[in-house]
């Protein structure tokens, strides 16, 4: 079985690239864009851009409560995306899909609502050493305000979570285990199902930061049995400004609201209000409507191609990239073997700062990221101020890995 984008279940990358107008751009004359920064944000296919244009050109109106045609069309499009998200991650219902601004806001929503009600001083929350700041700082704020205790699953030298220590930490009877399904620095794909199962056995709730997993591999919230899961549209071919919180229905029903305002209420009096039902309870104010429309188009696009095919393509690329990178004298790569990771290659080059590497690669049109990638504690652990990160998505070619490798040799030449 294939899609128009696959032959023998291999992605037809040349065809996919035609859908992304930005990939035709030259960064400098003679140097076409080689975009290896999709972990930060992905590029957008024309169908997504057109869907948003079309919305503004034909259907723009505020959603809900409008009785006119445009308001009904806008509401239908917005809610259709909720349904598409539910299908993508196999949520039992669409009402369990809450739109937020991004992954960060989704995690903050859980911390500020579920966390404030359910976590008391001394309660343990288990995180990991490989978390993005978005899954550290909200819990640190609760720790500072309410005295909850944070514990961390360590990262091993090979860039994986130490599950033996995790099992020991579970004896502390944590209230919550919150972790990333795929590290944005190491690329490590964590055994989410096992981590969640163990957490539940210990009586803890679970939250998965799926910002890097949902865009790159099939994710099934019912198979995972996860309590909360968060991700962003902009890393999966959609626009920035919209993200998702999935939650188990009973939990979401019980949680207090997050932001107060229009749309999240059933009734308002001068001194009191009644909250609306989920998902609206958590969606105060006018949301990112055009972005929801674009997000819907992005999910359609990825679904036609197939998440399995995307995952398998990225696996081929990272396998090749790891192989080519370690051939270069002075290059040190981070993270587990390609078998345990997604399309992220973080590396250092002896004696040359990642910013210099990135800046010189840019002169050849190669976009990589340099810095701590919003994971300072992880870099501290490996005693690194920063790394250079090349990341891959469905539109990347092995040929681009070759160009990256040539670029790194050029950096070495410049620094002699």
């Amino acid at each position, binding site marked *: 079985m294939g899609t128009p984008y696959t032959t023998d279940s291999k992605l037809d990358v040349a065809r996919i690239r035609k859908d992304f107008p930005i990939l035709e751009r030259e960064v400098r004359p003679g140097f076409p864009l080689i975009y290896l920064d999709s972990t930060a944000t992905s590029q957008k296919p024309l169908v997504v851009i057109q869907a948003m244009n079309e919305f503004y050109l034909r259907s723009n109106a505020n959603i809900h409560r409008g009785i006119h045609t445009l308001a009904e069309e806008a509401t239908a499009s917005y809610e259709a995306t909720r349904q598409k998200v539910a299908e993508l991650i196999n949520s039992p219902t669409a009402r369990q899909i809450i739109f937020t601004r991004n992954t960060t806001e989704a995690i903050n929503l859980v911390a500020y609502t579920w966390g404030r009600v359910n976590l008391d001083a001394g309660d343990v929350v288990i995180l990991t050493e490989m978390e993005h700041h978005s899954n550290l700082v909200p819990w640190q704020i609760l720790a500072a305000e309410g005295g909850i205790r944070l514990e961390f699953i360590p990262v091993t030298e090979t860039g994986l979570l130490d599950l033996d220590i995790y099992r020991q930490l579970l004896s502390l009877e944590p209230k919550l285990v919150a972790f990333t399904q795929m590290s944005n620095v190491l690329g490590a794909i964590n055994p989410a199902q096992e981590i969640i199962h163990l957490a539940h056995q210990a009586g803890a709730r679970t939250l998965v930061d799926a910002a890097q997993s949902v865009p790159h591999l099939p994710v099934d919230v019912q198979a995972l049995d996860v309590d909360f899961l968060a991700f962003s549209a902009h890393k999966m071919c959609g626009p920035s400004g919209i993200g998702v919180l999935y939650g188990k229905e009973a939990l979401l029903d019980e949680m207090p609201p997050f932001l107060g305002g229009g749309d999240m209420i059933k009734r308002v009096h001068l001194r009191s209000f009644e909250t609306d039902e989920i998902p609206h309870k958590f969606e105060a104010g006018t949301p990112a409507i055009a972005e929801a429309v674009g997000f819907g188009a992005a999910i359609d696009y990825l679904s036609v191609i197939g998440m399995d095919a995307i995952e398998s393509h990225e696996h081929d690329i990272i396998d090749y990239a790891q192989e080519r990178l370690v051939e270069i004298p002075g290059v040190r790569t981070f993270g587990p073997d390609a078998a345990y990771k997604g399309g992220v290659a973080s590396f250092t080059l002896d004696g040359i*700062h990642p*910013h*210099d590497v990135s*800046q*010189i690669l*840019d*002169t050849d049109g190669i976009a990589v990221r340099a*810095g701590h990638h919003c994971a300072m504690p992880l870099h501290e652990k490996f005693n690194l*101020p920063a790394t250079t990160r090349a990341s891959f998505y469905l539109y990347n070619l092995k040929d681009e890995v070759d160009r990256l490798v040539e670029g790194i040799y050029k950096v070495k030449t410049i620094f*002699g």
Partner: protein
Amino acid sequence: MDDLYRELIIDRYKNPLYRGVLEPNDISFEDDNTLCGDHIRIDILVNSDDRVKEAVFNGHGCAISQASADLLVESIQGMTLDEVKQLTKDDVLDLLGIELGPVRLKCALLSLKVLKAGVYGLGEASDDLVE
């Protein structure tokens, strides 16, 4: 952009002339550029007439941050502290001889920030010092 890595910058990065530590010293200050992980410390010995007798820098980071520190420290040898206080962003860019975008400007100006915070005797370095 290629000339961002002109010979002078690579040379001063690889073979700095003023890298070191002065202990004891009259002025010492250090700060980080957390965004990139650049770190610069500058130590100064001052003459009785308030002139820089000797100045050195130490630290780690990108070529721009380290080369700019080496060139800046070179430029203040023998200067009066009042003259050091008058140094600006443009002086550093003249020393480097390149144009920089907003992100790399922070790398280039870290050493000036550290130097001025030290000479003014401030507890903390602020971006206002290099505006």
